[in-house]
């Protein structure tokens, strides 16, 4: 990689790192939405290394009133959460989510990719169309890949907007995720004996831990 880009670098002198840091700072600052490294690269002069500049910039803003945060595979500047009290003026009234919507969101976040049937299985109640629609509309969830099981059901996954909203670097950083997984509470365990064919096949895709449950 370095070898390949070496001749290019000699042709187009990349600006000094301090200057690159300024550039990344300006771009992130100006944008309300997170910016990916690829986007930074496209906008910066040839040979620039925004990933490295980001490391420096992030450090520079540590402990400041504004922070450089990672959102999925993108970066953004956000005010420090401890200063939220100063911002009543900027506070946006978010639509009050129903309990069903909040739980559905959490289930998708922790189980993703997750089908509607799985959400219903966990909540023990049908998921209303409106709940999913609302989350889709808020751009907190989106469609993932179809599950390769009979019926090829759609799956839902959380979005970058979700991560941004809750200040998460990635879905792996969801609170308590590790513990829940360790406790087996993120397993998709079917009712003993009642497991039908489709669930069987679905299971095959899942982790090893769950295959143990299927010895018959």
């Amino acid at each position: 990689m370095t070898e390949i880009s070496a001749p290019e670098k000699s042709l187009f002198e990349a600006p000094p790192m301090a200057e690159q840091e300024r550039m990344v700072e300006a771009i992130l600052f100006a944008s309300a939405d997170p910016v990916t490294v690829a986007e930074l690269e496209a906008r910066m002069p040839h040979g620039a290394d925004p990933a490295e500049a980001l490391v420096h910039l992030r450090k520079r803003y540590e402990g400041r009133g504004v922070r450089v945060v990672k959102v999925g595979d993108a970066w953004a500047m956000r005010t420090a959460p401890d200063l939220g009290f100063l911002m009543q003026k900027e506070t946006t009234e978010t639509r009050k989510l129903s309990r069903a919507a909040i739980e559905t969101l959490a289930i998708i976040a922790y189980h993703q990719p997750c089908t509607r049937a799985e959400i219903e299985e966990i909540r023990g109640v049908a998921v209303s169309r409106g709940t999913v629609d609302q989350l889709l509309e808020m751009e907190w969830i989106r469609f993932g890949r179809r599950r390769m099981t009979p019926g090829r059901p759609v799956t839902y996954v959380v979005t970058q907007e979700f991560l941004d909203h809750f200040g998460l670097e990635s879905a792996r950083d969801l609170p308590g995720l590790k513990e829940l997984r360790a406790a087996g509470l993120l397993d998709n365990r079917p009712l003993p004996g009642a497991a039908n064919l489709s669930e069987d096949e679905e299971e095959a895709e899942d982790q090893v831990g769950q295959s143990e449950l299927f010895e018959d």
Partner: protein
Amino acid sequence: MAEGHEFEEDTTSVTERLAAEALIVDVEGFEGPLDLLLMLSRTQKVDLRKISVLKLAEQYLGFVEKAKALRIELAADYLVMAAWLAFLKSRLLLPPDPSDEGPSGEELAAHLAFQLERLQAMREAAARLMGRDQKGRDFFVRGIPEDVTRVRKITYTATLLDLMQAYARTRTHDEFRPYAFDRDHVFTMEQALERMRGLIGFAGDWTDISVYLPEGWTSDPSRRRSATASTFAASLELAKQGHIELKQADTFAPIAIRRKPT
């Protein structure tokens, strides 16, 4: 009869009745039987992993009984759950039948406990999620986003062929056809009509249509094809106009024409 019912109810203690009623009034607020079961399980005041499913089943069945007594119509899924729990209860109480291939009562109970624990875990996870710092509430984005101005650079392009065709177009002041159609091998219907009109006067007798093909159009296959098609089309046109008659003995048999006797 109705009075008898009232008397029966009076036998239960007031507090119990109030509790039951509160629960039942709350039915609307429950999100299905699993939600209700989770709520009932809390009365056991133990870790969900140590919950007595048998006791829970009895609590639930008791709830359904009371709902019936109070003549409250429960949704179907509550009754389905009641039936299933009654089945589970019997499995848990009766000694296991070795000939029975289905899952044991313990397995079913463990699964229900797992479901409750998982639902509870998801509720807690949801609460923790919503308790996080949220954008627009605890932390904020740039107030004046500077839009990236999209500079659209348009480059125009043209090929040499475009240029030449354009020139040709202006020089001819005519709609220019870039693909010169090879007309050398096309015998048009107009040509065929023209030719046949000249010849038809002599065709008093049935003559094979192939005779009418123009000279020099019979050896080359593509020329022959074109000439045959146009000659045939022209003869149809002439027949329609009442100048000639056509006949064909059989499918794919040769077609013959003659001047229409007047």
